[in-house]
């Protein structure tokens, strides 16, 4: 293998590097600079002022949104993982090779449907005169107020992250060493105990990464909290869209965005450390 830098090699490696440096890294860096700009007479001015940070961090609205977004995204990560696990387990251990390939294919389809359309569709199910309430009415229940609740937001988060979590869990479960499970059975370990003592620890990396992705997706999503949750409670993503779209307070939106990125990096770092804890590899 030739290793020297050549025109040939650079032709292939440079374009992506340049594109991502100019259009991905620079915008993110610019966001940091922007958070120190000031707004005077509805115009942004380059500056180095911590006023935006002080203002945003001094607002209880911001911290309420932060705490609620954290809580909702964490809950979504746990809920999605717990709901997805039996399904992934069934697909990984109880299906034939062919059936599993179909299961994977079907779980990929949602990625190519519009998330917005699916959220609108959930409105049809959850609204006061919607499908679920009509069905409950048949057995004499309801109507319940389902739309514009935190529960509806969770349905939205599930819609967003469930397929990805299932796929990631499925791939990690497929690679669990079957002889370990047999060994556990031979040692008279019960089914449930085998799942918790053998299967879950063996697939830990994949399971944690799946939950992490669910957290990241839910943390940044603004569609479900607005169109299923009714905008209440206000999440950080709603704060960003509101602040950006209504006027020139972009520097403040930048403060929120940077806070979100730092939070996500911290969570991702902790999750990955937890996932690989005690692994020598």
């Amino acid at each position, binding site marked *: 293998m030739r290793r020297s830098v050549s025109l040939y090699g650079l032709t292939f490696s440079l374009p992506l590097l340049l594109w991502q440096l100019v259009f991905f890294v620079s915008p993110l860096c610019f966001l940091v600079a922007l958070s120190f700009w000031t707004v005077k007479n509805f115009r942004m001015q380059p500056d180095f002022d911590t006023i935006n940070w002080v203002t945003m961090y001094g607002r209880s609205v911001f911290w309420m949104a932060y705490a609620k977004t954290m809580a909702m995204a964490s809950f979504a990560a746990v809920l999605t993982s717990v709901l997805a696990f039996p399904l992934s387990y069934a697909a990984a251990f*109880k299906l034939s090779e062919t059936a599993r390939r179909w299961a994977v294919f079907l779980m990929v389809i949602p990625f190519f449907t519009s998330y917005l359309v699916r959220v609108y569709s959930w409105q049809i199910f959850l609204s006061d005169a919607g499908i679920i309430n009509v069905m409950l009415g048949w057995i004499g229940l309801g109507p319940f107020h389902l739309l514009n609740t935190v529960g509806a937001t969770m349905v939205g988060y599930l819609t967003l992250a469930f397929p990805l979590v299932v796929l990631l869990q499925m791939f990690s479960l497929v690679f669990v060493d079957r002889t370990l499970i047999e060994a556990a059975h031979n040692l008279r370990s019960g089914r449930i105990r085998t799942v918790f003592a053998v299967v879950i620890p063996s697939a830990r990396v994949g399971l944690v990464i799946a939950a992490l992705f669910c957290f990241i997706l839910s943390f940044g999503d603004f569609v479900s909290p607005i169109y299923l949750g009714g905008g209440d409670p206000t999440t950080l993503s709603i704060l960003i869209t509101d602040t950006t779209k209504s006027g020139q307070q972009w520097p403040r939106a930048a403060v929120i965005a940077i806070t979100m990125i730092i939070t996500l990096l911290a969570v991702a770092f902790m999750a990955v450390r937890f996932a690989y804890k005690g692994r020598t590899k």
Partner: protein
Amino acid sequence: MSDQRPDAHQRSRTIDFALKTYLLIGYAFVFAPIAASFVFSFNSDRFPSIPLGSFSMDWYRAVATDPLVWEGLRNTLLVGTVVAVISTALGFGAAYTDYRYKFFGKQAYMALALLPPTIPVVILGLAMLAFLSRVDLAGNAFAVIISHVVICAPFAMALTRLRLSQMDASLEAAAWNLGASEWAAMRHVIIPFTAPAILGALFITAAVSFDEFAVAWFVSGLNETLPVKVLGFLQGQVSPRINAIGTFVFVTSMTLVIVAQVLLTGRGAKAQKAALEEE
């Protein structure tokens, strides 16, 4: 704790049945909104629910006669095509770089090549909007293309890299030994071998761009793509038109994906068979 051997078999069947039922419920949950959107796109009621109204194509007609929707579709197709070509080219280059070269800072390079889809779209949207309006590029189709390439190139890179890892590493070296220049080896060995992945990447990146609404919403200004229009419908007069557009976009995206799938597996299998026969 102890397994009662005689009925262990029976128990296992009950558990299997329960698990498989759960599996079906899970898939039902995933496909319920997709199916509902399809069904209600043909339903006459203004406020969709059950029992169904009569069959009607009204929403498709409403969509088809809306000039704004057509404009959105034009923008989507234009953006999608350009994004597919650029991000596939960039992704191919990055995948080949990873396949062939070892260099200092390669981990950083790969992180840059794979990271963008993990950044929340609201943040990416805001960063793009702020940056692009600074350099006077925001508010037009260019802005959407630039941002979508950032998001789509990693997918193209992953697909091509997967294909390259199936290639015998000595093939390229053999071409060099036979006197081919690096360029000729690229042209006659690497590109033909990765052709299915390149085509697949073109379709997948187009499909990703077709469905992306958040970043596009931030940066597009007046040149809205179709998904941004849908977001507008969702904000304004909620109407079953969303279902009609959704069904249309779903069919388009699925066509792209299935074509990509056929190209990736069919052509790949054929090429492998041909290679085996040549051996």
